[in-house]
């Protein structure tokens, strides 16, 4: 297929169908075809993480994923209804400045919380920084972002 095809996928719990070219970036499918502009484009080459989304539960950069690879997949973006704990932590800790990196940061922190909530120990700083290493903040508000992640993790624990 070089022609556009009918892409069926689930976005934030809702089944969607869009006609797109097979190599269209998932980022563009979300922002332009589905008008979900929460997902941001920073670098467009996999370095900055602003475009991070979950595909079938895995954190990926949507600028590096082709439409033909997400047929039937479950995609979650910053517009997903179940990110409230992490979003509240960012608000409280002042984890956002200009906000461009924030959607990607929120999803990376959610992945970090999912990974660590069930573990018996606290992640150390190296482990926390490694979990967010794929997300760059041009406003350099890293300390508050790290604080947001710690707060979100604390609240997610039983």
């Amino acid at each position, binding site marked *: 297929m070089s022609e556009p095809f009918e892409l069926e996928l689930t976005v934030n719990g809702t089944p969607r169908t869009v006609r797109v070219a097979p190599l269209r*970036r998932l980022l563009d499918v979300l922002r332009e075809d589905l008008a979900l502009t929460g997902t941001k484009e920073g670098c467009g*080459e*996999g370095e900055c993480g602003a475009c991070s989304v979950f595909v079938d539960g895995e954190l990926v950069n949507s600028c*590096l994923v*082709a439409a033909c690879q997400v047929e039937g997949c479950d995609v979650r973006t910053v517009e997903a209804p179940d990110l409230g704990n992490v979003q509240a932590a960012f608000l409280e800790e002042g984890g956002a400045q200009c906000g461009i990196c924030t959607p990607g940061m929120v999803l990376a922190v959610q992945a970090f919380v999912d990974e660590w909530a069930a573990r018996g120990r606290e992640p150390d700083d190296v482990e926390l920084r490694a979990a967010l290493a*794929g997300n760059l903040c041009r406003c350099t508000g890293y300390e508050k972002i790290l604080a947001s992640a710690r707060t979100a993790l604390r609240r997610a624990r039983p």
Partner: protein
Amino acid sequence: MSAPRVTVPRSLDEALAALAGAAPETLLLAGGTDLMVEFESGRTAPRDVVSLWRLDELRGVRDEGGGLRMGALTTCADLLGSDLARARADVLVDAAAEVGAVQIQNRATVGGNLGTASPAADLNPVLLALGATVRLRSASGSRDLPVEEFLTGYRATARRPDELIESIAIPARPAGERRRFRKVGTRRAQSISKVVVALAATLADGRFTAVRAAAGSVAPTAVLLPSLAAELVGQPPDEARLDAAARRAARDDAAPIDDVRSTAAYRRLVLQRVLRTELGALAAGA
């Protein structure tokens, strides 16, 4: 540029059939962490693309003869999550942990790292040092190639247009083999390597009995460092000997270039120092 023709096979057989009649410049798309950047920048404008990502037959890590066989689509994250990979190929898992960051590790595949044949592909020196083989598959059969024969030059491989990488095998660890991996980049995460070194060696009665070493980012593609074995096998690991081996390998086995990230002279010096440090650690049993 006209839009590329994209095939999304649902099974390995379908993929092989698609490749059987494919144009020579047809591109295989795996996790896309390398290719999507190429497409977007226009550096690569393919006419035909075959997407492999949904072929679960090419996933998974399993035992083979006390070693390991990995499907080509095995991601860095899959390696990090595999106890078998950790037990059989610890240094490969260490290398996977330093590829990009989480988002990249979730998509970057072993087959894609080999497929790029990039000098800066971090897994390839490890595969070389561990004596890995690549299984190439086509509609007409399959063949196994040692990684050093698969990687033929700068972003060039021995793959025929009708073939894909099906899997990669790492042989069983020789008794007592010690291994080291080290990546030098500009920062801890998500940086393109300046130098990568992988070592596998055995010692008996205070002498090296086998040495296999490889490096990345110091030549057009990942390369073996035969001088290390030539200098060290049969010798005790004394300081002067290790110094000489590191110096000779950096001089004779590397062919680094000047580019925006480093100069050739810097890379050669770093290679020598990193080899020396890692040989010392290896000899000390670390």
